[in-house]
């Protein structure tokens, strides 16, 4: 456990997360309008989404399937009977005056998420529930000095609200939770996890307590839209609460905002007043009944998820937990690795993928999907090392060229003449001239200064521009020096 040091001793942070994840679907949850990101304002709005008189919701079957798929991926209880409720409140971007959500009977019940912590350890966080609900529209406050502009393109888009238990104790754990959840959702193809575009938003519940004491009063920080902000907001909010309590104050349960310019949380004025959402079952909809066979059919199509993949990578490829984690965090990375590793030394493959490739991608700000070096080509490079066409050192040079040009390793090696010299005669000649030019050093070596061996190797490599096969150089050099 890691505690925060306060004036009066140690404090423990208690964190729970509510993540809103936008369901990947063509059409909205209850209307046939499109869901694509970035469209012209109000161009993807039906009369249902704008809550015109007499409009009625009809549910999108794919969104139900996505919720079930996600529930299965979280090893959660799938509720075969669930109910849609209305959550009533007035807001400019909530056209109906209520959000259709699920309150008492959500589609998915208890599940879990295993966090992979930076030190290689794991920790399980409980998932309380997952429910389906409608997104609201968007209020734009800075288009006009005295007005707010409303765009309803998002209104009615399907969201999964995934609620965790208050099981996390540090900002790092919260960060790991969001990362892991995002990874699972992406594996499942149920949410793209794009936090900048708002496809994933976090409401963070934070409270503090003395270790072992009952839960303190919590504050909810709404709509935090990056993992970094989630962690920063928790750190700030915990310290704020500790300070208040240590100064003899008490925490008001309230909704707060993370101010991304001042790096502070602040009270949300618009949500100030106490809410009474008056939930009740939506009479425009009927209870949702799922066929257990249908759920089983979805289960049978689930991909291998990060935890299972990680275990397999450790078992099958003998990777370290750390490397396995890095590789499985995104399905595209794991797939890339497996393509490279196929029929090759898996450790070598892992080293090249997590080392050179990720390093270059990172520097270039590119995703693995955009890598100029394909998995096949990286495999080709490794093959050239394995069959002694090039040395490991030359391979790094070749990789750099591959990353720049996207060309195949063999082509670059040919073009640049980097093929390793394995011609014994040529190496011998090279060694002879090095030994001749350094007769004094040869004498020193022979009188017992073994360490000079490395010097001779270096000179030979220099003379061959690094292309001489190191093993052959060793072998011939040893023979010649002895003689």
């Amino acid at each position: 456990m890691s505690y925060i040091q306060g004036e009066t001793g140690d404090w423990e942070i208690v964190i729970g997360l509510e993540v809103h994840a936008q369901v990947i679907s063509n059409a909205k949850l209850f209307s046939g309008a499109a869901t694509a990101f970035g469209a012209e304002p109000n161009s993807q709005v039906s009369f249902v989404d704008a809550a015109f008189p007499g409009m009625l919701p009809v549910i999108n079957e794919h969104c139900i399937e996505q919720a079930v798929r996600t529930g299965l991926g979280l090893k959660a209880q799938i509720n075969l009977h669930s109910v849609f409720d209305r959550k009533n409140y007035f807001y400019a971007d909530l056209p109906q005056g209520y959000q259709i959500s699920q309150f008492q009977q959500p589609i998915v019940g208890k599940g879990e998420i295993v966090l992979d912590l930076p030190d290689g350890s794991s920790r399980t966080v409980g998932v309380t529930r997952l429910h389906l609900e409608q997104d609201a529209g968007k209020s734009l406050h800075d288009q006009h000095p005295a007005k707010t502009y409303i765009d309803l393109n998002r209104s009615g888009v399907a969201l999964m609200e995934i609620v965790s238990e208050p099981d996390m104790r540090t900002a790092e754990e919260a960060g790991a939770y969001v990362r892991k959840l995002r990874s699972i959702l992406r594996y499942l193809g149920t949410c793209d996890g794009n936090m900048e575009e708002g496809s994933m938003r976090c409401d963070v519940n934070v409270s503090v307590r003395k270790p072992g004491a009952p839960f303190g009063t919590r504050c909810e920080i709404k709509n935090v839209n990056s993992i970094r902000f989630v962690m920063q907001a928790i750190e700030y909010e915990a310290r704020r609460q500790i300070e208040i309590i240590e100064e003899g104050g008490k925490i008001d349960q309230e909704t707060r905002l993370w101010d991304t310019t001042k790096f502070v949380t602040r009270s949300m004025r618009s949500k100030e007043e106490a809410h009474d959402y008056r939930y009740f079952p939506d009479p425009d909809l009927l209870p949702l009944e799922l066929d257990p066979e249908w759920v089983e059919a979805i289960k049978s199509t689930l991909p291998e998820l990060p935890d299972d993949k990680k275990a397999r990578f450790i078992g099958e490829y003998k990777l370290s937990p750390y490397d396995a984690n890095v590789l499985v965090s995104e399905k595209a990375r794991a797939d890339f690795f497996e393509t490279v590793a196929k029929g090759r030394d898996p450790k070598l493959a892992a080293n090249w993928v997590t080392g050179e490739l990720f390093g270059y991608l990172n520097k270039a700000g590119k995703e693995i999907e955009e890598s100029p070096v394909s998995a096949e080509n990286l495999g080709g490079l490794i093959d050239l090392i394995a069959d002694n066409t090039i040395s490991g050192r030359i391979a790094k040079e070749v990789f750099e060229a591959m990353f720049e040009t996207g060309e195949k390793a063999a082509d670059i090696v040919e073009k640049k003449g980097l093929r390793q010299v394995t011609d014994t005669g040529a190496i011998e000649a090279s060694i002879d001239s090095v030994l001749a030019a350094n007769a004094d050093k040869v004498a020193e070596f022979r009188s017992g200064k073994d360490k000079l061996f490395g010097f001779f190797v270096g000179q030979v490599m220099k003379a061959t521009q690094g292309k001489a096969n190191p093993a052959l150089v060793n072998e011939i050099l040893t023979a010649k020096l002895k003689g």
Partner: protein
Amino acid sequence: MTGLTHLTMAAALDGLAKKDFTAVELTEAHVKAVETIRPLNAFITETPEQALAMAKASDARRAKGEAGPMEGLPIAVKDLFCTKGVPTTAASHILDGFKPEYESTVTSNLWRDGAVMLGKVNLDEFAMGSANITSYHGNVVSPWSPGEVGNWSRQLVPGGSSGGSAAAVAARAALGATGTDTGGSIRQPAAFTGIVGIKPTYGRCSRWGVVAFASSLDQAGPMTRTVEDAAIMLRSMCGFDPKDSTSVDMAVPDFRAALTGDIRGLKVGIPKEYRVEGMPAEIAAIWDQGIAWLKEAGAEPVEISLPHTKYALATYYIVAPAEASSNLARYDGLRYGLRVEGASLKDMYENTRGAGFGKEVRRRILIGTYVLSAGYYDAYYNKARQVRTRIKWDFDEAFKQCDVILTPTAPSTAFAIGEKMDDPIQMYLNDVFTVPASLAGLPGMSVPAGVGSDGLPLGLQLLGRPFDEETVLRVGQVIEKAAAVTATPPFMA
């Protein structure tokens, strides 16, 4: 040709088929009739040009041999149905200026079958009322009101909420009208104005494009002058609609074909709990008369029990306002209708909704808000939903013993404006006989059965099993024929 406005739909279809007159002639007569009955304030929006254009198109279709089941029949539309390009008000100030860009499924079905729209008729604001006195566009006067036109000696209510529909049909300004029924809003005004009104089983008519009052209860239905016409019009209005999740995917029967007149051996349930304390003698008498007619026709009356009848109104006055409070949240001055500006968004909401909703709507929204609010949900709303289940169970039991249920439609004949008006509970009691079937989602119809001592119409109500509108209609027609009511409103177009 004023005689044209006194035809039944069935007769008008015959006349059109035989080329006795054209749809344009029939429509012209009705357009004039609509003007004539203006003193009743039945119409909020008249659409004569549209009517004539539709009639012309109808004649063209008929000429091509493409006549639909309601080809050329001029009807009125309750102003709760959204009609494309035509103002739709729900009789509320808050929908000022609202012109839908879409057409409700029910009206689309009617136009598909050839019907002609005369205009949009008045109602209680958001269909909340039983007297058509809560409309922002003024109350509707029943054509049964005694005295001089426009200078009535007693201004009678047409019932509500489909009061404009009832008045227009009774006064012969439309061959039929659409109504909607949440707790009796088709049946009670039909009874008050001496016409036929049927609310089909919940799920028969699509609610898509109908301004919502209480979603779990709202159902559209026809209001006509005969049972046969109701059968014709109901068939066109019904049908599965994938846009309404509560719409039922079931074939629509040819309701007219069910009108065989043969009810021999049919068991007619007479619920003892409907003999409420203080029931006026003439209501009890007409009910007994109805039982006798059916018996004569070979049916067998059986006493049944619906023990939770007395709780239906209280249940209704929790469930309906609760749903309404949420359904009406969308009227916020932001996207359509009235906006009353304010310094902040909250002020704008409160000003708009404060000015836009009338007293009765406001009252129901507040009750609905209260019964759903934290700490009261279980005691009120959830309790009401449980009692609703028991009411439904009562009917399930009853229909094991009978095929159809006969009751009075309303506890009195039409009353005058000003009576019963200060006390909301008194007003709510109008729905005492109609509400239980609404809560149970059952088909219910009111049929004219006679007149009271005041010369005003009395109706009898028939309730059927879910999706058994056919039996309801068949038995209804037997009563209609036996009663052979000849009285007509003193004021007709």
